[in-house]
């Protein structure tokens, strides 16, 4: 049949060449996506953990964010991946907070549970960093714990702006995309966060 012959030949070009080219692009995209996720997963986990104060909840949030990025935004230009990924992560963190609020209200009547997670031991924060010497590690561990306490006391938007700009290294435009606000708001939130942290930690001299 003529129709089938036309489809086989793909008109003017070769279907095989076009299909192979598309497969190569898809493979390149997959490799780039894997490299991107590997580059952000640790910092994303720490950002989520500081917000949620729980390693398992943070891991769930990061896993969800990875899945959503791959499902919805893998075809977007690569420079957009990081802001989009953190936007999704922030939404997941917010969802976890809401779920936790419901859970705490339901189980608040159980003996021994007061729903206050402020004093929950944080093994990651207490582990310290791999600096030489036990005294240096202890000092770094204490400094990190103090920083995390101060960060958790910040309003949510200030904490987001500080961690995305200072820790993750997003520029103002990328941070605005991740936070869903204007660049001016990002600068304001960041400035106020630094001011509040300085008030609580001093200049954090080494």
């Amino acid at each position: 049949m003529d129709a089938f012959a036309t489809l086989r030949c793909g008109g003017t070009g070769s279907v095989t060449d076009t299909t192979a080219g598309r497969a190569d692009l898809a493979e390149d995209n997959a490799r780039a996506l894997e490299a991107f996720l590997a580059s952000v997963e640790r910092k994303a986990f720490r950002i989520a953990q500081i917000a949620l104060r729980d390693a398992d909840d943070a891991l769930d949030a990061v896993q969800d964010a990875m899945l959503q990025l791959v499902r919805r935004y893998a075809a977007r230009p690569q420079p957009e991946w990081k802001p989009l990924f953190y936007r999704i992560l922030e939404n997941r963190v917010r969802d976890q907070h809401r779920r936790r609020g419901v859970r705490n209200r339901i189980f608040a009547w159980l003996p021994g549970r007061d729903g206050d997670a402020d004093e929950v031991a944080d093994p990651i924060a207490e582990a310290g960093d791999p600096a030489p010497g036990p005294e240096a590690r202890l000092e770094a561990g204490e400094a990190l714990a103090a920083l995390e306490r101060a960060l958790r006391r910040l309003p949510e938007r200030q904490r987001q702006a500080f961690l995305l700009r200072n820790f993750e290294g997003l520029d103002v435009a990328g941070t605005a995309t991740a936070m869903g606000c204007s660049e001016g708001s990002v600068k304001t939130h960041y400035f106020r966060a630094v001011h509040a942290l300085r008030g609580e930690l001093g200049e954090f001299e080494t």
Partner: protein
Amino acid sequence: MRSGEESNGNSNLERRARELLEASAAGLDGRVRSRLTRARHAALAVQRHARARRAWLSWAPVGALAAAVLGALVYVRHGRMLLPGHTPPASGADDLELLADVDALPLAEDAGDYDFYEWAASAAGETEAVGS
């Protein structure tokens, strides 16, 4: 934006905070690193499956065209069968329908009954001819 409401990220506080947080990210324990790796692989597997599904669906228009051509052939053949003067050949389905008809007269094995039925049929034909 008021002057001064910006930070260049280089104050002692900002530098020290960044160092501590980066060190904590680099020093994650094995359990957390393993979970993150598995999460990454699971997300990429989803993408691979989606790609494979899209490749399979890209052949759907060809299948639809083939089905349309087949349907047209069947329609044309069936249409020819319905033209005036065209007697569709007897099909086995008619015989099956006759056998399955519970209200049908039972097939008699006695030869004498066949003679009766033949007489009855010819008598019915004569009656119709008179009445028309």
